[in-house]
């Protein structure tokens, strides 16, 4: 959801990075665009204002460090400020209390409270190994209590038996009692949805809180919310008192400015995000990573972590060795394709890389997606061992057989072979260099420079700061591949022009 915002800011800051000195007028122009982008992303006006004011203040007065362009300075300031607004560290549900721990869910109607309650219950049961009891206090919406009961049955998580005619406070007390007697670790209270203006309902929520003494009060809020986000977060915080926020529908294509707004006005952390309809789609919120994405910096930290976690070092070494000798057959290519898809596939990799979200859309439009990798692996799987080792023996009849076996057209086989030849050539050329196994693919896919070897990746991951403060150092350690252009993917026909990264102006690695 944050991709769109990162595109906007990417474009704006691009203009800045390409200039020499940074004048007040430059900053003003940039801030106007930042303001507009944030507003279009549904960040509340007041939050936008304080945000741009802070950034402007720092940007104009900032002494530009040597070897850093003024644009980079602004990027850093905006980045830091975004993180400061979003919360500097990922905070999750606090389970350090005497059981049963009471967690109360509040929110507007239709924000996703019941679904989120079930998701949280599943997470606490499966991940944290807690014994969870769910109770619905929504006596208003038809079948709301049944909804939670059905979800509980599906997930095999206990729900409080429904007793008709009870008031929400009574149900809360009953849930507490059941939690103590049943030896539960956590009791989740799903309350009725309410509008911020409904005094009666708001005091009902406050009364439930008094009765149940919840350890956590979570506001469940829709990430698609517009300017009203400030009002709703503020009124729930004032009337009920929150300990955290859960953002739902983060898998939508909304720009998610509500996250910034709510965090800013309440000062309460965003603890979790809902990323899908299924009950396992609940994730931790990472402010630093999200801020990076907003800026178009890409989620480089995740990329490196993923890479080092997924690349089988031994296999990689073997492949490297073969490559150095100039041997690169279809088996090796298959290995590389599989490694790529393990790292999240084309779109996964792209999503984590800076400034390519727009390209991602273009690629989707051109029909280039992860299925291509799967298909190419399928094509190789349809070959005999001999064919894989000696692709040169592939003639028309063999190709037809393979095509039929893989459910593809012969053109696809040719495309794959062409790609393989290109990669093999590249390998030979680079055979002498100390490159990682991904280098070939990176090169063939036009990633520019080589990707680092697994050892380098690992070293990089260790060097990488966990938090947010890595911005200025980060670029120096970046694999060159992430800095160069990202053009001309194989089989990428629908694209014209040469898309490039936004050129955040990372300093080039010294030779």
């Amino acid at each position, binding site marked *: 959801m944050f991709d769109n915002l990162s595109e906007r800011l990417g474009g704006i800051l691009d203009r800045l990075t390409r200039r020499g000195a940074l004048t007040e007028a430059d900053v003003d122009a940039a801030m106007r665009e930042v303001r507009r982008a944030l507003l*279009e992303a549904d960040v509340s006006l007041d939050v936008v204002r304080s945000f741009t004011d802070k950034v402007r203040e720092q940007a104009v007065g900032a002494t530009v460090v040597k070897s850093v362009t003024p644009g980079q300075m602004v990027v850093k300031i905006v980045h830091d400020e975004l993180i400061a607004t979003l919360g500097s560290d990922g905070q999750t549900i606090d389970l350090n209390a005497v059981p049963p721990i009471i967690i109360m869910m509040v929110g507007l109607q239709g924000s996703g409270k019941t679904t989120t309650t079930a998701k949280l219950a599943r997470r606490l049961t499966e991940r944290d190994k807690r014994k969870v009891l769910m109770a619905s206090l929504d006596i208003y919406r038809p079948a709301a209590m049944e909804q939670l009961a059905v979800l509980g049955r599906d997930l095999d998580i206990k729900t409080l038996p429904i007793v008709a005619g009870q008031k929400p406070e009574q149900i809360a007390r009953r849930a507490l009692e059941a939690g103590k007697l049943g030896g539960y670790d956590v009791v989740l209270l799903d309350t009725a949805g309410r509008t911020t203006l409904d005094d009666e309902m708001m005091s009902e929520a406050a009364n439930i809180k008094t009765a149940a003494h919840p350890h956590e009060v979570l506001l469940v809020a829709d990430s698609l919310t517009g300017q009203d986000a400030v009002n709703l977060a503020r009124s729930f915080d004032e009337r009920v008192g929150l300990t955290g926020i859960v953002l739902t529908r983060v898998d939508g294509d909304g720009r998610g400015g509500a996250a910034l707004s709510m965090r800013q006005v309440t000062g309460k952390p965003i603890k979790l995000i809902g990323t899908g309809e299924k009950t396992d789609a609940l994730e931790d919120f990472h402010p630093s990573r999200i801020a990076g994405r907003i800026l178009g910096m890409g989620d480089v930290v995740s990329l490196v972590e993923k890479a080092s976690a997924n690349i089988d070092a031994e296999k990689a070494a073997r492949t490297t060795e073969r490559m150095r000798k100039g041997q690169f057959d279809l088996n090796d290519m298959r290995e590389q394709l599989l490694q790529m898809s393990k790292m999240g596939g084309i779109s996964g990799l792209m999503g984590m890389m800076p400034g390519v979200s727009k390209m991602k859309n273009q690629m989707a439009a051109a029909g280039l997606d992860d299925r291509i990798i799967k298909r190419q692996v399928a094509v190789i799987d349809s070959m005999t061992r001999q064919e894989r080792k000696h692709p040169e023996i592939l003639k028309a009849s063999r190709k037809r057989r393979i095509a039929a076996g893989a459910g593809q057209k012969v053109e696809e086989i040719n495309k794959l072979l062409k790609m393989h030849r290109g990669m093999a050539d590249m390998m030979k050329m680079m055979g002498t260099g100390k490159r990682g196994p991904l280098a070939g693919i990176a090169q063939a896919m036009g990633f520019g420079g080589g990707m680092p070897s697994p050892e380098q990746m690992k070293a990089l991951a260790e060097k990488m700061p966990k938090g947010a403060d890595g911005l200025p150092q980060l670029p120096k350690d970046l694999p060159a591949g992430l800095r160069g252009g990202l053009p001309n993917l194989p089989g990428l026909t629908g694209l014209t022009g040469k898309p490039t990264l936004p050129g955040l102006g990372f300093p080039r690695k010294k030779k």
Partner: protein
Amino acid sequence: MSDSTEDKPKQSWWRRLSGGLKRTSTSLGTAVADLVTKRKLDRAMLDDIEDVLLRADLGTAVAERIAEAVGEGRYDKAISADEVKAVVATEVEKVLAPVARPLVIDDTLKPFVILVVGVNGSGKTTTIGKLAAKLSAEGRKVMMAAGDTFRAAAIEQLKVWGERTGSPVIAGAQGSDSASLAFNALTEARNEKRDVLLIDTAGRLQNKAELMNELEKMVRVIRRVDALAPHAVLLVLDATVGQNALSQVEAFHRTAGVTGLVMTKLDGTARGGILVALAEKHKLPVHFIGVGESIDDLAPFTARDFARAVAGIET
């Protein structure tokens, strides 16, 4: 849904709406009054007007344009708060007037099929319930189809509305195919000679291709029974939604051929100003607004009242 409002004296929906707006400290009325009590209309004032429109979710482009329109011919003239409000209301009304069109049920079509779509939690099922109540009160024989086969207990929720309004509800099992359910319901409604068939759908985010395909299939299957159906496709929008509503309208229109909009939950602090941006861009009729939780809180949309409420004009 609480019916607790029943014993209170009846107010017009708009009075309740503007009553709600009055209570928000940032409502346009107060803000504009703060800004322009006996002042010359200048750049700064127009910027401020733009800001208050932005706060109502009108979006940058529309807010800018309306602020400009307010300034046109009035620049450097002294203007009172009330005048500014009136001008803002007039400009907003100009945009909204063409889209304020009621939902017309063609009684020669039996059944008149209404498909209700939207993202999760926007209030589809509740809107269907209210619509069913309204249409049966007008003397029509209504049938409902519980097409939300995904969300737990959505079917039960609609059945409760069926009991309240005395209308039959056609339902399958949870997780069953919604298209075949729609098919059965339409066939049934035909056999029973029902006047109106209201079809509920599961909430879906508009960027989920597979779910949108499912909706497309539902429409296709409905057309197999009746080539002209669904005769109305209502997109339900939550008043709190921001700029994402533009993308919602676009996607749902492309997939299901939306014929009109319904905006729910206008009884909160959200002002639903996105409707103005939507009116400019998509020109789809706005049929109803939901301003409360009780069964008759579904009011026809009127441009003048809405515009005045947005501008904070009282009575």
